[in-house]
C-alpha cells in the first residue's frame, strides 16, 4: 500500500514535470519566433529579410514560411517575397541592409481590390526562388521553411506604375 502510494506520488511528480516541460518548451518556441512574423493579407504567415545585394534591378530576400507541411510550393515564396517588397520592406543587421517598402501598407488597403486579384495571378515574372536555397527546420508542430528569392523589383515597379496603382516619380510634373 505504501509502495503503491509512493508509486502514485512519483507518477504525479512525473506528470507535473512533463506538463512544465511542455509549458516551458512552448514558451521557448514562441520566443524563438521572430517579432516581424505575422499573417499577411495574402493568407501566408511569413517573415522577410535581406539576403545580400542583388544584381541591378533586383532584390535578394530570404523568405521564411511557417507551415504545417514540410513541402511548400515555390509560388508561395514568390508571392510572399513580392508582398514583402511592396508593403513591408526588409532589413538584415548582419548584412547591413535596410530597405523601405516600395509602396507601404496603406497602399495595400487603398488598392485592396487590385491587389487581391494581383496576388492570385502568376507572379513568376516578378520573382523566382534561387535554386538549392531551401532550408527546412521544425519548431514545435510547425515547419519553418526558408528560401532565397530574387525579386525583379524594377519590372515590378514599372508594371504597377503602368497599371496606375503606384505613382511615378515624374507624377505631377
Amino acid at each position, binding site marked *: 500500500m505504501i509502495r503503491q502510494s509512493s508509486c502514485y506520488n512519483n507518477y504525479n511528480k512525473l506528470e507535473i514535470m512533463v506538463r512544465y516541460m511542455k509549458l516551458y518548451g512552448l514558451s521557448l518556441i514562441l520566443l524563438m519566433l521572430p517579432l516581424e512574423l505575422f499573417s499577411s493579407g495574402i493568407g501566408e504567415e511569413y517573415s522577410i529579410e535581406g539576403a545580400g545585394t542583388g544584381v541591378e534591378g533586383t532584390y535578394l530576400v530570404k523568405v521564411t514560411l511557417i507551415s504545417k507541411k514540410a513541402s511548400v510550393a515555390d509560388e508561395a515564396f514568390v508571392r510572399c517575397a513580392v508582398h514583402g517588397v511592396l508593403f513591408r520592406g526588409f532589413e538584415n543587421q548582419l548584412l547591413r541592409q535596410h530597405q*523601405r517598402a516600395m509602396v507601404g501598407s496603406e497602399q495595400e488597403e487603398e488598392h485592396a481590390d487590385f491587389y487581391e486579384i494581383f496576388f492570385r495571378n502568376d507572379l513568376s515574372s516578378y520573382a523566382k526562388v534561387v535554386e538549392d536555397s531551401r532550408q527546412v527546420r521544425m519548431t514545435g508542430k510547425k515547419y519553418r521553411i526558408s528560401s532565397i528569392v530574387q525579386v525583379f523589383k524594377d519590372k515590378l515597379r514599372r508594371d504597377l506604375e503602368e497599371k496606375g496603382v503606384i505613382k511615378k*516619380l515624374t507624377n*505631377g510634373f
Partner: protein
Amino acid sequence: MLLLVCPMLAHAQAKRPTLMVVPTNSWCAEHGFLLKNTQQGATTQIPDYESALNNSIELVSVITKIGELMSDRGFPLKDLSQTIKTLRQDEAEDEMLTSRSSGAILAETSIDRLLKRAKADILLEMAWKVNKTGPRNSVTYLLRGIDAYTNKQVAASQGTGQPSISTELPVLLQEAVLDNMDNFIIQLQNHFEDLVANGREVSIGIRIFDNGSDLSFESEFNDKELTDIIEEWMTQNTVAHRFNLTDATETMMNFEQVRIPLYKENGKATDARNFVNELRKYLKTSFDITSKIVTKGLGRADLILGEK
C-alpha cells in the same frame, strides 16, 4: 467656360525641378579638391568640382551611376561636368563677343558674375569614405538631397556596406549606390507628392533700392503700411495662406516656406519668378511702385522696390 479651362489644366505641367549630383564639401576637403577664394581680405574655401571630376574616376563613376538610375525613373539629372564645360564655354564666348558697329563688349553686372555657377534646384550631395579594418575594406556612403533655395534636406540615404577582403573599391561603391538609391528615391517622391498637393515651397526676399526716394516698408499707402499691404497680398495668393515672414525691417522683408500654387488660373506652370511678378504688377498698378525682379532659380526670387 469650364469646358474651356479644363483641357488647359489637363495639359498643364509643373516645371520639373532640376537635380544635379555634386560631391559634399567634406569629400572635396578630404580629397584636396578645394579652391581658396580671397575677397576683401577674408579667405574662404570653396569646392573645386572641375578638379575633382578631372582627377577622381570613382567620383565620375558614382555620379554616372546615380544619373543612370534616375534616368530609369524618368528623371534625368543635370550633369555636373557638362554644366561646368558650358559655363567655361559661355565665359570664353562672352569675352570674345563684341558689337560690330561700336566694338562694345557684353554688359555684365556683378550679380550676373555671381550667378554664373553650377546650380540646380535640388542638389544631390554625395560622399563616401573607405573604412579599413585589418585586411577588410568597407564603404560608408551618403546621399542627400538639399533644396538649394530653402536649404531643406528633402531626402537622404546612408549606410555602411559589408566589409570585404577581395572586392575592389569601384565594386563596393556601385553596391553602395544600388543599396541606397531606392530608399532615397522613395523620400524624393514623397517630397514631390507634397509639392503637387500643397504647392511649391519658395523663398522670397523683398528689398528697397537706396536711391534717396524715401520709400521704406513703413511708408503708408491708403493708411496702410507697405509691410501690411505686401503681407495681405501674400495671404491672398499663397496656397492655404501658408508662408512665414521671417524678417521684416523698414528696408527688407524675408518670406520663407511660401507655398505657391503649381499652376496659374490659366493653367500655365508657375515658379518663384512668376509669383513675384504678380506682386510686382500689383504694386505697380495699385500703388505706382516700380520694382525689379532678381531670379535665383525656380525656388527663390527677390523683388527690389524703388526702380528697375
